[in-house]
């Protein structure tokens, strides 16, 4: 009887340890998968950043510098007044190109997030977009802002950049409202535009929308897209703070 019972104890302990080892293995695998996804996402963000830099340099700065070079190449030294105007224009264009370069550098770099946090970075982003003169942007942050770890804030920042990029590319909007609301457990982010809208269920998810979805799920958040043609689009993202918060 005792022998049977000793075997019972040994079996229980052995099976328990076996199950526990399997559980720890599962956790390790999950952790590795999560880290892998995070790394992949970071690589994607990096790749996209490079693409944006390349596009900006080609379409904006390159154009300005080419124009400046054209002005300087076609200088007619006989006409001093025209030379002065052309040189001044060139200086102005080179100055604008330098400013643009500096803006791109700040917009693409994660330094702004590291130094100033998500809210300041978003404010800067909205100012940049307002400068184009095509949009009226209302930005607000309510509740008690919580600092999240840099990686999380960077992913959130890239999500907003992606949404704004989509608005610029497809929405034909004139007004954009961005609201961040922090409560004790959630960061709730709403980005609303008055553009042409779309049927979210019918829309084929492009790379931009896919990236937004992927990055939101990476932060264990929820994404809701509310849109109808001619009414505009409201994108609502909720991120749990306790799972992404390793307070600074």
């Amino acid at each position, binding site marked *: *009887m*005792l022998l049977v*019972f000793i075997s019972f*104890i040994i079996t*229980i*302990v052995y*099976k*328990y340890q076996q*199950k*526990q080892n399997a*559980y720890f293995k599962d956790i390790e695998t999950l952790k590795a998968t999560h880290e892998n996804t995070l790394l992949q996402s970071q690589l994607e963000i990096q790749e996209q950043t490079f693409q944006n830099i390349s596009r900006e340099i080609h379409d904006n700065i390159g154009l300005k510098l080419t124009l400046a070079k054209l002005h300087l190449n076609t200088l007619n030294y006989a006409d001093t007044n025209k030379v002065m105007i052309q040189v001044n224009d060139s200086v102005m264009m080179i100055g604008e190109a330098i400013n643009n370069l500096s803006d791109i550098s700040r917009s693409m770099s994660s330094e702004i997030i590291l130094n100033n946090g998500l809210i300041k970075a978003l404010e800067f982003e909205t100012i940049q977009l307002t400068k184009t003169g095509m949009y009226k942007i209302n930005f607000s942050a309510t509740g008690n802002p919580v600092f999240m770890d840099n990686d999380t804030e960077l992913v959130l920042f890239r999500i907003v950049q992606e949404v704004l990029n989509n608005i610029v590319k497809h929405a034909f909007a004139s007004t954009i409202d961005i609201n961040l609301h922090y409560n004790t457990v959630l960061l709730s982010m709403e980005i609303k535009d008055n553009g042409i809208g779309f049927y979210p269920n019918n829309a084929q998810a492009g790379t931009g929308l896919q990236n937004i979805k992927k990055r939101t799920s990476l932060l264990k958040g929820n994404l809701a897209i509310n849109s109808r043609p001619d009414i505009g689009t409201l994108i609502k993202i909720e991120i749990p703070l306790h799972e992404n918060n390793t307070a600074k």
Partner: protein
Amino acid sequence: MYTLNNAVFWVGTGFMFISFITAVLIPKSSRPYMKRFFLYPLLALLVSINSICGRILLLYPSNLFFNIQSYLFLVDLFFWCCFFSVILNNKKDSDKIKALFIITFFVAVYLLFFNKVDKRNLHIGALSAICKTVFCVFFFYKLFKNLYYQNILKEPVFWIVTGLIFSSSLLLPFYGLNSYIKAQFPPLISSNIFSVSNMLIIIMHLFFMKAYLCTIQVHKA
């Protein structure tokens, strides 16, 4: 007469006393469920003293002995219900344990007051043993499902529940077959057979002592 059974009884009572003293003295801060665990050896000691007074020393009538024994079995079951409710640490699971206890309690009340059977302490004991075995099986099921502890060998609760399932599952045939054994075997043999049931209780207390040792190790760590 029946020296083996009586000897085992006295030794068992001694074990329960040591178990009670140890349970009172051990540091309990590391495991909250150990705070009131000393009540169980105390209860077992009372059951044992009742048996000595009522059965060996014949200090009071057997009917009174059976009744006291039955009530003590019910209190014992209530203790285990509270203990499992605490260790399962989950309201839903605790409710299941409480529900099973309430059902068993009503069946026991029926057996005690409405179904006047002889030696009702054996019926209540069997019922209580079934209920405790179910508690233990449920605990092991939850233990495997939720993997509460990193090293179960160092967990006092593992040794307590193992000791309990050992005694309650093996005591069940002794309660159930009491009349049969007494009818089939001569008094000396049957008494010696029943001494095994007391040995089971001693072994259960040995498991509890192992649990106390774990508590001391955990406290030192």
